[in-house]
């Protein structure tokens, strides 16, 4: 298991995802790759964040913000 | 249907500036935020409007309503009556709406109002409300004067937790009603 996947699986254990977003543990993606292609905004945002921050050369704050905020704004429309 | 009460409560009554430092600044604490931990056993009012209301009732019960001298400077605390004692941020306290109504009733009772002409449309509503506010300011003025004199006689008078209550109970009307009300 890579660090990315490990962090992802730790984060996806949070109860809020079950209680508020009604996501069952079974439906959770197992790898960052799966998570990145998720259609669920919160899962995909988390994946984008991890993917970005665990890269050897993380992007700048502004770029990161553009990627995630833009994705979220569009998915909310 | 026309409603004088609704109109009246949007007003901000004033008081004479002479009382600001000696009464409002010393007897009322503008707490903002949470009140309940700061109330120190009756020795203070938790808000300016509480002192104002208190002084009004003191004036009312002692039948003291001197109008302001012409040149007296009037000040207020820019808080319309309708927001006095509104729940808002006052945790653990009660709403004052009914006290507002009682004050209003007292003002209507104590003010010479030409309501007939008002209904006929010959007098403006605004003028009537103005008169009500004037009465309110007069009684408050009377009450504040009484409180001030109390303090002048004994600067520590309000250090007792019962002082403010006693002043109400021992007012002119209070002594009358004591005889008539059910005691036991």
């Amino acid at each position, binding site marked *: 298991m890579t*660090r990315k996947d*490990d*962090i992802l699986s*730790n*984060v996806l254990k*949070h109860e*809020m995802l079950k209680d508020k977003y009604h996501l069952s543990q079974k439906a959770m993606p197992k790898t960052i790759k799966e998570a990145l292609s998720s259609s669920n905004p*919160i899962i995909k*945002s*988390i994946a984008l*964040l991890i993917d970005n*921050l665990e890269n050897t050369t993380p992007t700048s*704050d502004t770029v*990161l*913000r553009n990627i*995630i*905020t833009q994705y*979220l*704004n569009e998915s*909310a429309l | *249907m*026309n*409603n004088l*009460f609704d109109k009246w409560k949007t007003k901000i009554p004033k008081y004479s500036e002479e009382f600001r430092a000696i009464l409002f600044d010393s007897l009322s604490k503008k707490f903002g*935020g*949470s009140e*309940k*931990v700061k*109330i120190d056993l*009756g*020795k203070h009012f938790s808000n300016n409007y*509480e002192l104002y*209301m*208190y002084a009004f009732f003191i004036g009312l*019960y002692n039948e003291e309503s001197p109008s302001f001298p012409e040149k007296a400077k009037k000040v207020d605390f820019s808080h319309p009556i309708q927001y006095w004692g509104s729940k808002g*941020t006052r*945790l653990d306290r*009660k709403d004052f709406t009914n*006290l507002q*109504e009682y004050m209003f*009733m*007292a003002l*209507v*009772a104590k003010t010479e109002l030409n*309501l007939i002409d008002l*209904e006929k449309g010959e007098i403006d*509503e605004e003028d009537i409300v103005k008169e009500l506010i004037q009465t309110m300011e007069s009684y408050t003025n009377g009450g504040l004067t009484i409180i001030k004199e109390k303090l002048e006689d004994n600067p520590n008078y309000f250090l007792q*937790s*019962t002082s*403010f*209550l006693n002043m*109400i109970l021992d*007012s002119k*009307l*209070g002594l*009358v*009603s004591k005889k008539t*009300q*059910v*005691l036991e």
Partner: protein
Amino acid sequence: MIIKKISLENFLCYYGVKEFELSNGLNVILGNNGEGKTKFFEAVDWLFNGDDRNLDLLVSAKALHETEKNESFRVRVSIDVEQYNEKKSIAKSFIVKKGGKNESLISNYMLEGVEETSTGERCQVDGKSLLNRVFPFQIRKYSMFKGESELNIFKNEDALINLINLFSDAKHFEKYSEKCAFLRDKAEKAVEDATKCDKKNQGLYKKLTSEIEDLKNEEYKIRVHLNSVEEQIAKIEGKLQEAECHVKNADALETINKRIKIIEGKISDINKMIDENYTTSLFDENWILVNFEPIQKEFSEKIEKLNIKKRELQSEFDRQIGQKEGEKKAKTELLNNLIPLPVGVPSKAYMEEMLKDEFCKVCNRPAPKGSEQYDFMSKRLEEYLNSQAPVEEDKSIKVLFENDYTNRLSTLSVSHEDNLANLRKIRFKIKQLFRFNDSRKKDVEEQILALEKEKADRERIIGDSSIGAEKLIDVLKNYNSWQADKTLRYKEKIDYQKKLDDNIELIKKKTEEKENIDLKTAQTFQIKTREILRDIEKIFVETKEKKFDGFIDQLEKKSNSIFESLNIESFTGTIYFNKKVIGEKMSVIPELQENGRTFYKPNQSLLTSMHISILFAISELAFEKSEEEYPVIFDAPTSSFGEDKTFQFLNLIYETENQKILLIKDFLATDKTSNKLVIKKEFSNVNRNKAFWVVLERPFDKNNLSTINTNVITL
């Protein structure tokens, strides 16, 4: 990694080459004060962490003395280690060239590394990188301790963070909290900016924003206060516990303290029941209306009069109009010039009922069909129904009253009529409360008497203590004032806690208010984005905390299991890691507890065993993390123990896994007959893997360093 050998050459008191062939497990190095224990520790420390500064202070005076002018010699410390079955050695050294008159030339140091593969090949490598490979810097920090005071690693503020970075997954989550906060912040700003564009709410929004800001500042301040009160309580508790040590009858003291606590609790409970917020009750309980009845009467009479006057004028007016309108005239005639009741009184329902029953319930007379009364009633009803039907207004007819203020005033009057009974009860209620408060105050007085009695008893018990009389008065005096202080601080703590809770509640409320404005004005997508980013932040932060807590738990469990096995003074308590967060900073302070009670002033030997337990726990964690064991080196860690306890201690840590090097001054004595320093026979009962004795070559002159030479005897 295991250290196989440590060699010292011309390092301070170690003249020439001195070697320590170490074993895995427990290595004990005995030595009297001033005979080379600490110098050994300093040599190893210099090898691991030393730099080029003050090299001249490390040179053996004897070596310098024995060397001819212009000749040179070497100062060197080296270790041979074994790591994964490979032998490695690291040496740090410098050259001293003797000049005239105490002047000598000293070179910079050299750090050399040699690696030997399993096939026996040796090759030179960079010493610094080799050192970090065999014994990583971070781990080294938790491996060497000089004296008892250094054992408390949590004295250092960053210790916890270092530990986390070394051993816990929590470190991976650190950066996420930061980035998430950044993203959430930007999303909040986007919503705020959108809301601010809306002119309508600008004022209120601004006000709420600044109020929230103020409240947050307030919250921070309260937390600082709360924290300082807690620290004061700990200090006072510590002093009390220290004083209690002197008391002979400790059990009785504890019982009395418990009783005092109960009584104090009772007093505070009763005091809570006493409600003396009379000024607040003036408003909240409407006590201020206690004298209002006559005024209310005045009001309702005035309104009643007004009503009558109004109807009078209306009928007068109607009569005048009625000359043109036959119908209205007829109506006024019918009433013999009296003022008619308003149309609609009695109500439609009552009128219909009376018609049905053929009975006028107003005058209490029968009204059979066809009678004058019956006709009157049906006419009244008809009149009412007509008045309700939409009438085409005759604009030519003038209305007398354009406005109706009276109606509302009447309603007000009627609605408060019912409340009169309550107003009349106020005086009674006030009296009742006064009576209640008075009797509670009496209760308090009784409790205070009981409290004083207990306190007198307590003084007697404290009086029977093990310290001298003049000091006793001091303790006694302070003991009571400390107790009083403690009670006061606890009250303060409760107050601050309450303040804090209120403040938090208020922030929540204001934030909700503010967000309601957002909901009305900002774009839906902005709000949704903000919500998700908030949730993501919460998820990451809480995951980090979970990891962090998990680590602390693990450390606590391990420390306690070692602590239990050390079992110094048959202490049955546990180590508890007290986590504190102040502002952004988090700290963890290990405490000793027994039956839930914190020991604020444990004695040094308990403290030492706690610290050693924690250190061993850390080294176990290091083993789990890197699957490698590292040695620990302690110089005089147990000086507070005394020989018996040290004996016990050594036998216990002998059982723990990794390599340990312990320098102690115990088990040495001067033989009375020969006047020579010898090792006591008790030492033969100490379980150990290897033991050494560092001892100065006799004779020596302690004022002349060039006579000093420590020999290493392997036992």
